[in-house]
């Protein structure tokens, strides 16, 4: 960890065996995420973003290559990593409080009540402890999911299109919230999103992936100071960056249309 790299991905490839042959989902990806950095990943559908994230979470194994957390290979889920899924993924038979206690139950530990109360306050969920998930709006559910993911103080937060199902306003609110929490905790965050705006607003670095096979295509720095305001979104820098990234993704999708679904084998 002396080099400050929190997550390291080296030559990561993942092959899914499918009925129509092996599918190379990600191909020799390299990525370093420094401690305390926010990195966004964007890319066309099927470019392997989720696959990459899941191997980092330890939920997937790689076909070849390695992912490391603090210099140690990740082979199984670890409590250093919190995950936020696309739909809030709350357990509908548990109320908010019991949903947040769920990780602790699995890990066989007592929940850190003071910390959770602080998080609940931070995301504006005080007083909602006894509500059932179905009684909450999509944004509120995702707040619960955020508290749940942070409740056991992971040093890394992996988010897979966490706000994709929310309306634009709620989404913006959630983006601010994530940044606030980030400024509080300095948790290393890796965020997959389909929204280039969201990617730029939150990240120190935006990674663009290309599809079939999924590769890391380019990387863009977002050098704005924090806390950021939505005003930066109307600056020329952001406008240009958005266009560049959009072109990369659209170009990739166009060139893909002519290509057959890749069934190439990963090298190595």
């Amino acid at each position, binding site marked *: 960890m002396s080099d400050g790299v929190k997550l390291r991905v080296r030559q990561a490839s993942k092959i*899914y065996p499918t009925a129509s042959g092996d599918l190379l989902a990600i191909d020799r990806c390299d990525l370093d995420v420094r401690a305390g950095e926010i990195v966004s990943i964007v890319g066309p559908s099927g470019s392997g973003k*989720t*696959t990459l994230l*899941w191997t980092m*979470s*330890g*939920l*997937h*194994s790689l076909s070849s290559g390695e992912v490391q957390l603090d210099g140690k290979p990740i082979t*199984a*889920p*670890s*409590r250093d*990593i919190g*995950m936020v*899924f*696309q*739909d809030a*993924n709350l*357990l*509908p*038979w548990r109320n908010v409080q019991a949903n947040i206690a*769920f*990780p602790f*139950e*699995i*890990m066989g530990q007592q929940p850190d009540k003071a910390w959770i109360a602080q998080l609940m306050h931070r995301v504006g969920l005080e007083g909602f402890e006894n509500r*059932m*998930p*179905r009684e909450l709006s999509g944004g509120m559910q995702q707040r619960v999911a955020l508290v749940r993911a942070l409740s056991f103080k992971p040093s890394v937060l992996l988010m897979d299109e966490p706000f994709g199902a929310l309306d634009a306003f709620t989404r913006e609110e959630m983006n601010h919230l994530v940044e606030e929490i980030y400024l509080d905790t300095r948790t290393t965050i890796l965020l997959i999103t389909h929204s280039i705006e969201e990617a730029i607003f939150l990240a120190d670095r935006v990674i663009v992936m290309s599809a079939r096979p999924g590769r890391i295509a380019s990387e863009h720095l977002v050098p704005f100071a924090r806390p950021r305001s939505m005003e930066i979104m109307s600056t020329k820098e952001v406008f240009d960056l958005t266009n560049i990234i959009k072109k990369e993704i659209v170009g990739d999708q166009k060139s893909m249309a002519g290509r057959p679904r890749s069934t190439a084998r990963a090298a190595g």
Partner: protein
Amino acid sequence: MESTDAIPQFSKSDAGSGGVGVANMSALAAGPGIQSVRDVAIIVIVAVIVVGGLELLLNLFSVPQYVMPKPSEIAYALVTDFWFILPHLGHTLVELSSGFTIGALVGLILAAVITQFPFAEKIIAPYILMLVTTPMLALVPLLILRFGFGYTPRIIAVALAAGPMVMINAATGFRRVDSGKIALARSYGASTLQIFWKIRAPMALPMIFVGLMVGSIFGLLTAVGAEMVGGGFGLGNRLTSYSSMIQMPQFFAVVLILSILGILIYVLFFLLGKKFASWET
């Protein structure tokens, strides 16, 4: 662990909701929706009209008692013969509750086990289907021959009738894997057993209640049928004996008790489902 490689898609049509098979919770949820005093009043008035009308019609056409006794006669028989019928109700309840408990337990365990091993499920499925579709009453004469005229053959018959019903419904429930929720649990390092108790079992609960309800009604049916064949005691035995003596008011009094019993069982599982599986609806 083949499940490791499934990325949940989180489309709204994922296994999490809907698609629960033949019977589903809506059958339970569509229970009596009594809202106000006015509703109660209407229900009572309709009941009075139906019962009173029946009484009036039977009087008007002077239908003989052995064809259809009047509601008042049935009510009278219910009161006068109550203490005589009560022990028989007790016998039926003993058979039903012990047979159902055994059948439901075995059914639940089997459902939990086979759904963990899809291959075993494929092998067992045809036999389960046979158990579900074959009326267990058919076995009662054989069971009596083997176990005599006591509780035993009846309890076995009830268990055989209720168990498979509980099992197929519970299996449907356990099969509703939501890969996203399982991934969630796994991301905290959950073991297979933890995933079963904390994800699969609660997700299956609504279907388990459906199975328990259907199973207990089938159990009641089988208990009464076995009593009709086996003789000696139980409400089913009362039915055969009253009808053979053409004591129709008593006969219908027993039928009334049976239907009330059935309704109580339904309401019990409806309320249990509402209490423990209300998140579904």
